[in-house]
C-alpha cells in the first residue's frame, strides 16, 4: 500500500496524462459515421507508427560495434517508416475519393 501510494505520488503527472489521453482518444471519435470507419482506422494506424521514434532512439543507443542491435534497429526503422508513410498515404488516397464529389 505504502509503495503504491509512493509510486502514484512520484508519477502523478504521468498518470494524469495517461487518464486524460485515454478519455480524449475515446471522446474524439465517439460519434463517427460508419462511412469514415475505414479511413479513421487507417489514420489511427498511421499515428501508432510513432513507435518509429523509439526505433530511432534504439539505433542511436546501440553500441557502434554491436551489429546485432544495429541490425535490429535498422530493420525496426524500416518497418516503422513503412507504417508511417504507407499509413498516411493510404489514408490520403481513401479520403481523396470523398473530396472529388464535393465539387
Amino acid at each position, binding site marked *: 500500500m505504502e509503495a503504491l501510494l509512493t509510486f502514484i505520488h512520484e508519477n502523478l503527472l504521468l498518470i494524469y496524462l495517461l487518464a486524460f*489521453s*485515454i478519455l*480524449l*482518444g*475515446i471522446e*474524439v*471519435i465517439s460519434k*463517427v459515421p*460508419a*462511412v*469514415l*470507419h*475505414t*479511413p*479513421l482506422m487507417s*489514420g*489511427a*494506424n498511421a*499515428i*501508432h*507508427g*510513432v*513507435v518509429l*521514434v*523509439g*526505433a*530511432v*532512439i*534504439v*539505433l*542511436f*543507443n*546501440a553500441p*557502434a560495434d*554491436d551489429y546485432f*542491435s*544495429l541490425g*535490429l*534497429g*535498422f*530493420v*525496426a*526503422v524500416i*518497418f*516503422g*517508416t*513503412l*507504417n508511417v*508513410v*504507407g*499509413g*498516411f498515404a*493510404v*489514408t*490520403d488516397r*481513401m479520403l481523396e*475519393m*470523398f*473530396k472529388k*464529389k464535393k465539387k
Partner: protein
Amino acid sequence: MLTTHLLDVLYFIAALSFVIGLKMLSHPDSARRGNILAAIGMGLAVLGTLFFHPSASNDVVEDDRMLKLMLLYSALAIGGFIGWRAAYKVKMTSMPQMVSLFNGLGGGCAALLAVAEMKLQYAGVHGHPEAAGLILVLFTLFFGSVSLTGSLLAFAKLEDLVKDSAITLPRHTIFNLGLLAIILGLIGYTTWGAGDAGMTWGLILFGVALVYGFSFVAPIGGADMPVVISVLNSCTGLTAAAAGIIYDNLIMLVGGILVGASGSILTVLMCKAMNRSLANVLIGSFGGGGTSAAAGGGDQTIREISLTDTAVLLNYSSSVVIVPGYGLAVAQAQKICKELDSLLEANGVDVKYAIHPVAGRMPGHMNVLMAEADVPYTKLFDLEEANDALKKADVAIIIGANDVVNPAALDDPGSPIYGMPVLEVWESKTVIVMKRSMKAGYAGIENPLFFHAKTKMLFGDAKDTLQKLVAEVKAL
C-alpha cells in the same frame, strides 16, 4: 541543452496535431486535412528525434556517428519509398489488407526495438535491468509480436491466401488459452526469476508470442477480419505507448494511448454495426456452420431472368435501388455500374444505392469504392434510409452482395448471422440478384433470398453482365 528543449516543443506540437488530426478525421469534410495535419506532426516528431534527441550525440567517435546516421537515413529512405509505392499502387478493393499489413509492420517495429532494448539492458548499457523497466520491454515485445503475426495472417486471409479450416485446430480456444498462460509465465520468470539468463528467456518469449499472434487470429473467420484488424490496431497503439514509457518519450506515449483508446472504441462501433459482441467475434468461430439455414425442403427453385427482361424492367420502373457488394468491387465494375445508373437517370428512373455498414470488407469500405466511381455522396443511403427506400422501390438490384441481404439474419435463429441488421431488399416489388454462381457468400452461409418468390437471378460476372445490360438499355 537548448536542442532538447526545442525537441520538447516539437513533440508538443506533434501531440496536438495527432489529437486535432484524429478529431478532424471523424468528419467527412475535414477528414483529409486532418490526416495531413497528423502526418505533418509525425514528420516533426521523427525529424526532431533525428536531430535533437540526446541519444543522437551519444557517439563521440565521428565514424560511429556517421555509421549510425547512414543506417538511419538509408532505413528511412527504404521504408519511405516502399511504403509510398505500396500505398499508391494498391487497388482500392485491397485497401483493408494494406491497412492490416502496415499495422503489422508497426507491431514488428515495436517487437524488434524491444529485443534490441532488452539486449542493451542486459549488456548493462543503462545498468542491469530493473523489474519495472524490464516488464515494460517484455510487454512491448509481446504485443508487438502478436500484432505482427496476427496482422500478417489477417492480411493473408483477406487476400484469400489461406483457408480458415486449414489452420484451425480442434479446441483451438483452449490451445490459445494455454499459450497465453505460458506467455504470462515467461514474462514473470524473465522479470523476477531468470536473473542474468533473462535475455534467453526473453527471446523464447518473443518466439512464443509470434506463434500466439498467428494462433489468435487463425480460428476467426475471414468476414470478421476488419474487427480483428481494429483490435490489433489498438494493440499496436498500446505497444507504442509502453515503448514511450521505456524511453520517457511523451510523443510516443500520447500517440500510442490515443490510438489504443480510439481503436478500442472503433472496434466496439464495428461490432455494433454487425450486432455482435467482441467476445463473440474473437472466440465464437464464425463461418464454419450454416447448418440449419436453408436446410428445409427440396422445393426450393430459383428463377432466372434474361438480360433483355432485366433491361426492360429497370428502364420502366420509377425507382431502383442498387445494392453493391464486394463482388462488384472485385470485378472492378463500379464505373460501369455508374454508367447504368446515369442511363437510367436520363430515362427518368430514380436510382439510389443501399450501402450496408459492413458492405465490402470493412465498415465504410463500399462508400470509398463507390466514391471512386464518382457516385455522388447524396445517392448513397445507409442502412435505415435504404430500408425505407426499399419499401417504395420497384426493383432492388443486388450486385455481388450476399450476406448483407440475407433474410436468415432476421428470421432464422440457427443462422450464424442471426441478429445482424440487413438490407430488406425483399420489401421492394422485384429483386434481381446478379451473381457469378450459387456459391455461398464470404461468411459461408446459405442465402434463402435466392429462393424468394420475388427474386430473379441474373448469373454472370458482374462487370460483363453490367456491360451487356448497359448495351441492352441503350438499345431500348
